[in-house]
């Protein structure tokens, strides 16, 4: 298969690539905007939309890649309870800045997609949880929401039916963990962002104990093109298990960083060399985080990997948010890992001791190795530590996410760590990865 990335449809960003598109309601409607919303409310059944999205193969764009239609189907039917759709715009994963593009440049696409998604799951209220730092993106959304109300696209008795829909934005306040879906619900309810144990799952017991679905911004935005062009058109792009396009946010040492809508299955090498105009200053690629820091990194020799769920999993990492962080040959992997350890240490919510202690301890170990004070046993201690806080031992996936950049940095750049330890311990004869010799007692 593999269309070239230039010829691939732009389901989400087609309008943005036009000169002068300002994302106002008038401009959005001139481009067919809200027609699918109208069609959903006036002539489709929720089950039909869920089936269509199932057929499209759409998978969540917030990191986990869970099939969206399947997630929607978990919502109870005729529960008699209020249902909620929470749109996750917490976007705080290091290297991830793609939802912001839609929020700022085409907020009505986000609203229409969210509205269709809410209709499918029987929700008459949507909260869009926007990270606190995104002041301007939230203003753009609020303005668009007001426009939509004034045009009768939101509110009561929509399009002459009994359907109603309200949309509100809700600000976070700088805590990364609130992007985790159960922490997001706690935060929405006005509490500390502590993830909840699962089960119960949100579809049964979510925000305020009611049936709730949490979807990423880009995920819901895809609802419009899927309704507009059909599941087949969506599936004609991307791969069998990862259909459609994906917003790839590229940062780091490339000539043209930015957000690009690309077909799923595009090779990383193509993204770096062709989409982003190659490496900055003619340097060589050293490594890259595939889809945000918590997905782990791969060395340059893996740049042939394609950006789809199966291909990256075969290399031991995850697609995540497709926030591709590119590092050139001059980058210190130890430093990069320390910067991330500082982040995870700052952001652990502190509920689970393995995570709370594990993050701080990891940071201390990496820091002393970086500063030339590494102990011969540090790499073993670090590996043991990772083993002890990861693998599903905690309430949420935060610690497992932190383990990915740590484990992959140790795996793919072992010699860099060993070299740092050896320099700090010139008396050492052997590999620092060995158990320190004990003289016996």
């Amino acid at each position, binding site marked *: 298969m593999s269309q070239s990335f230039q010829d691939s449809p732009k389901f989400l960003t087609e309008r943005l690539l036009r000169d002068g598109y300002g994302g106002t309601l008038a401009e959005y409607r001139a481009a067919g905007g809200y027609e699918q919303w109208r069609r959903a409310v006036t002539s489709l059944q929720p089950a039909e939309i869920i089936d269509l999205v199932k057929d499209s193969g759409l998978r969540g764009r917030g990191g986990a890649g869970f099939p969206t239609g399947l997630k929607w189907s978990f919502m109870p039917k005729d529960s008699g309870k209020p249902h909620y759709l929470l749109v996750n715009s917490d976007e705080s994963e290091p290297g991830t800045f793609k939802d912001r593009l839609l929020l700022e440049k085409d907020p009505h696409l986000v609203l229409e997609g969210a509205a269709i998604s809410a209709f499918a799951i029987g929700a008459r209220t949507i909260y869009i949880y926007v990270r606190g730092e995104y002041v301007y993106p939230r203003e753009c959304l609020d303005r668009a929401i007001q426009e939509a109300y004034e045009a009768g696209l939101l509110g009561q008795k929509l399009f002459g039916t009994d359907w109603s829909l309200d949309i509100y934005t809700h600000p976070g306040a700088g805590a990364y963990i609130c992007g985790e879906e159960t922490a997001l619900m706690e935060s*929405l309810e006005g509490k500390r962002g502590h993830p909840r144990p699962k089960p119960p799952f949100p579809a049964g017991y979510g925000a305020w104990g009611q049936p709730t679905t949490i979807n990423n911004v880009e995920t819901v935005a895809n609802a419009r093109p899927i309704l507009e062009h059909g599941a087949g058109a969506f599936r004609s792009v991307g791969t069998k298990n990862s259909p459609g396009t994906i917003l790839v946010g590229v940062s780091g040492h490339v000539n043209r960083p930015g957000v690009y809508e690309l077909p799923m299955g595009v090779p990383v090498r193509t993204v770096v060399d062709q989409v982003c105009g190659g490496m900055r200053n003619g340097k060589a690629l050293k490594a890259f985080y595939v889809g945000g820091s918590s997905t782990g990194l791969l060395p340059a020799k893996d740049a042939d990997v394609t950006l789809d769920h199966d291909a990256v999993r075969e290399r031991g990492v995850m697609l995540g948010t497709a926030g591709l962080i590119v590092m050139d040959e001059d980058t210190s992997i130890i430093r990069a890992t320390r910067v991330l350890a500082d982040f995870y240490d700052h952001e652990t919510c502190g509920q689970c001791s393995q995570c709370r202690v594990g993050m701080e301890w990891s940071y201390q170990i990496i820091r002393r190795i970086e500063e030339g004070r590494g102990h011969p046993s540090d790499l073993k201690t670090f590996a043991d530590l990772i083993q002890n806080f990861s693998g599903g031992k905690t309430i949420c996936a935060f610690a497992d996410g932190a383990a990915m950049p740590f484990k992959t940095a140790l795996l793919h750049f072992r010699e860099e760590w060993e070299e740092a330890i050896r320099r700090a311990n010139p008396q050492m004869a052997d590999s620092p990865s060995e158990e320190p010799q004990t003289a016996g007692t």
Partner: protein
Amino acid sequence: MSEQTILTAELRQEFESLCERYPDRKAALLPILHRVQAIHGCLDRRAQQEVADFLGTSAVEVHGVVTFYPMFREKPIGKHLVSVCKNISCDLMGSDNLLAAIQRKFAVQPGETCTDPSFTLEAVQCQGACGYGPMMVVDGHYHENLDAAKAVQILEDLKA
């Protein structure tokens, strides 16, 4: 001596309409705290108590929330808040140089406030501007694609 209330009648009215958005008024806590902090400068114990009373919750609950979220602060800061991103994508693009230049030029460390111009400096985690680093946020406004000289100039201009 009675202290002036932070939650004026006008603010209370505004907050009531926020509460109506949710099935439980306590859910309006985060948006209310943002607004109070913007007006009052910080969320000191008095502000926390007033917000707790308004929402019908305890000051301890509000304190727990205020201390959990990095964007909330209990103490006043300088006239401006300058937040330099130190996370991975910005670090790769030299955010440490930018931070060092600011520290040198204005004799201020992260977490401290300088007097001329009056701003509080902080080094923060990822702001979602990864492709446009290094970057800093000044009073909620993103400044992207910076270098040390540009950053210093922006802060110099705060004097004006």
